[in-house]
């Protein structure tokens, strides 16, 4: 097991180093463009040459890469061009904001989609099942950028119930969370609910449930004690996958509601060629993806007795 974990960690490090080389190559291969991005379009060649000289861009490529990597490992991501502060000052608070948004979405979406999925799956083909299925399919097929516009048109412009943006500029406000969370939940809950429903419906047809019902156990007890446990394995995996999706899938919603999160920052950095910030965002995304995958792999071997290592 220890060897397995070490191997996974080694693989993780190797992946990250490979990605870092690629990121660095893509972003910094041509010093001229770096200077132009940093100094802006209205500078002349002489001004750019002076900047390159001051910032060591005339050193060999591998020296620049190693120095960059060294700084990166110690948490020094360089200065953001757009924000003119160290990248870390922008990155961490925004990552935390996305964490809050993603956490809120999960907190609403998981209980909602699980209970609706279970309700639908209990009696396949019932009126309740049909309604939940149709509602789930409809909301899932509307992308976030459309539902965000629809929600805003209804609750901000027409009814005037909710604030139109979620900048939290006067401190954290619950009412500013409602629309972004709603847009994401609307998009996502149908998918998880459908998964749960399918899994539940399948379990409900198994012989042991039939036996439990036939031996006279109360219906709610059959559901809670016998069906639910097995039915929830598949949705659980799906929900785990949603965590990765939430990190990137929030871009549209964050941008639309001006929520200051990781997704919007990544978009802004890319649109504005803020190279050091793009590099940091890319590495953070890779780190999160690789880490969750490693944890999932390791965790799965603990949880599932059918998987064992020599």
């Amino acid at each position: 097991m220890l060897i397995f974990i070490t191997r996974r960690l080694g693989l993780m490090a190797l992946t990250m180093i490979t990605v870092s080389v690629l990121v660095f190559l893509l972003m910094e291969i041509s010093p001229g463009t770096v200077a132009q991005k940093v100094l802006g379009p209205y500078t002349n060649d002489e001004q750019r040459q002076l900047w390159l000289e001051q910032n060591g861009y005339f050193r060999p490529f591998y020296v620049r890469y190693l120095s960059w990597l060294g700084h990166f490992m110690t948490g020094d991501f360089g200065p953001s061009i757009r924000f003119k502060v160290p990248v870390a000052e922008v990155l961490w608070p925004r990552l935390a904001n996305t964490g809050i948004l993603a956490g809120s979405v999960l907190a609403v979406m998981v209980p909602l989609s699980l209970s609706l999925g279970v309700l639908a799956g209990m009696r396949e083909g019932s009126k309740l099942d049909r309604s939940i299925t149709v509602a789930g399919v409809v909301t899932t097929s509307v992308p976030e950028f459309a539902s965000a516009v629809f929600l805003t048109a209804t609750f901000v412009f027409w009814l005037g119930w909710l604030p139109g943006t979620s900048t939290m500029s006067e401190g954290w406000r619950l009412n500013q969370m409602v629309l972004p969370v709603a847009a994401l939940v609307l998009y996502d809950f149908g998918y998880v609910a459908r998964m749960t429903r399918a899994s539940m419906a399948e379990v409900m047809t198994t012989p042991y449930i039939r036996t439990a019902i036939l031996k006279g156990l109360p219906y709610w007890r059959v559901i809670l004690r016998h069906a639910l446990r097995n039915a929830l394995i598949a949705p659980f995996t799906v929900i785990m996958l949603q965590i990765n999706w939430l990190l990137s899938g929030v871009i549209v919603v964050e941008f639309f509601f001006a929520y200051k999160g990781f997704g919007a920052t990544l978009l802004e950095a890319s649109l504005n060629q803020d190279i050091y910030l793009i590099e940091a965002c890319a590495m953070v995304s890779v780190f999160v993806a690789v880490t969750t995958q490693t944890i999932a792999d390791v965790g799965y071997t603990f949880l599932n007795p059918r998987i064992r290592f020599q």
Partner: protein
Amino acid sequence: MSKSDREKQHPYIPELAEQLRKQQIDRREFLRTATLLGVSAPAAYAMAGKIMGQSIVPEARAQTATPKKGGNLRCSMRCQEMTDPAKFDWTEKSNVARGMLEYMAITGSDNITRPFLAERWEASTDLKTWTFKLRQGVKWSNGDEFNADDVVHNFTRWLDPKVGSSNLGLFDSMVTATDTGKLDAKGAKMISKSMTPGAIEKVDAHTVKLHLNRAELAVPENLYNYPTAIVHRKFDEMGANLSKNPIGTGPFSLKEYTVGQKIVLARRQGYWGDEPLLDSITYVDHGDDPAAGLSALASGQVDMVHETFVEQLDVVKKIPNVVLHEAITAQTAVARMQVDKKPFTDKRVRQALLACLDHPKLLEVAYRGRGALAEDHHVAPIHPEYFKLPVVKQDYALAKKLLADAGYANGIDVKIDLKREPPWELAACQAIAEICKPAGIRIQLNVLPSTQYWEIWDKTDFGFTGWTHRPLGVMVLNLAYRSGVPWNETHYDNPAFNKALDAAGSTLDANERRKLMEGLEKTLQNDAIIAQPLWRSIFSSTHERVKDYKLHPTNYHQMNKVWLA
């Protein structure tokens, strides 16, 4: 005007007054030129009033109520970094800094430039020597007195290539180019441009003199460009970072500052001028999505949206209690062709493209008709020296003939680079592409994100570049069409044009200058280096509780008189 003022006045003033009397120039042009030549704004208004027999009171703002002090104005605008004002490349940065820092001159929303930190100025008759008398009694927020050292320091750093300021191009008449003896990567000679020794002279503690290489008319206008805010003489010693060391002469101080999120300016004690009415201004960053600002305005999260795009006018009209502001400007974008890149080396190809244009249609399609018709020479009807040329009609037959003469009888395929924002630019390019099709000019659009476009804007052979408003027509021509200047994106190189431009730039008489502009405008039109679809209006929206706010043609925030009902 006092006797001493009259003695110091520029020798051209009496003639100017005479022209106003004979109605050869209008009141607006008189005010503009008089203030430009160092007459204070009230004195100029008084002179105009005397000559024209009108009240000497300056035009009053339409007031519905007595201004009220207090309140926090919340404005949706990008909150960008604000390190070095000399390096600003966005109006938004300067709008925040404008609360704290001030300029030597100020251009009002009426497009007239007046003295500000400089109390008055005098130009020599050849317009090569400018003397600035600085206002006395102006204090920096750290208690220091504002003086000539501050001004000298600012000019020195603007014109130092190591600082990286675009002012180096703006004050080209104070700059000398020297050969560094080095070659760049492409093997071309590296030319270093820096301030001509002695170009700025400190006469006494409150007087500075500029000695220019050539006549320059627009010095005061240039001093109210967004990167020419005056910083403290110890700005560089204190770390050259305005957001960390916000010392200024302006009425507001920096209270809160988080880049990309929120900036709060608060009224400060001890301001030298009239205190502003607002207690504070809060700028809230809503990202790059223009719809977010309107959502915030509609739900009462902000009182004002910095910029409203023409595509949003219908939405704005539907929001209750919101006022739409419009300013007619000299802002535009031009489909410019590089004259040294094929196929645009052939003038007939460029002329063929221009012959296809139907300007009224372009204005209607690309900008809902809100703006003014352009004539492909980059001088706007609101520029004082604008000369009206005969309307150019769409002529497909001519376009086809020109193309055939140039060897493209079967038509021609070209690709234009353009940026995604603002959206009207895409609409304009689509309209140009459609309008050119019947003549056999097939234009393919290559839409880029703004920042990517700004990397190639001066390099691409065919591109659509946005140009901001400038108060004078000669300013734009100097920046963009003079041979060898950094922003000459068309690579246009016409010695006769340069010479004529020199002449126009040193002609004070607006009527005379207008005559010279006729030639310049015609030359540009005939050489067909730019296809200019329109002059656009700009818009912003406020809640109706925001009073006495006037949209500036360059969207500069001047908040000293704004108040909240």
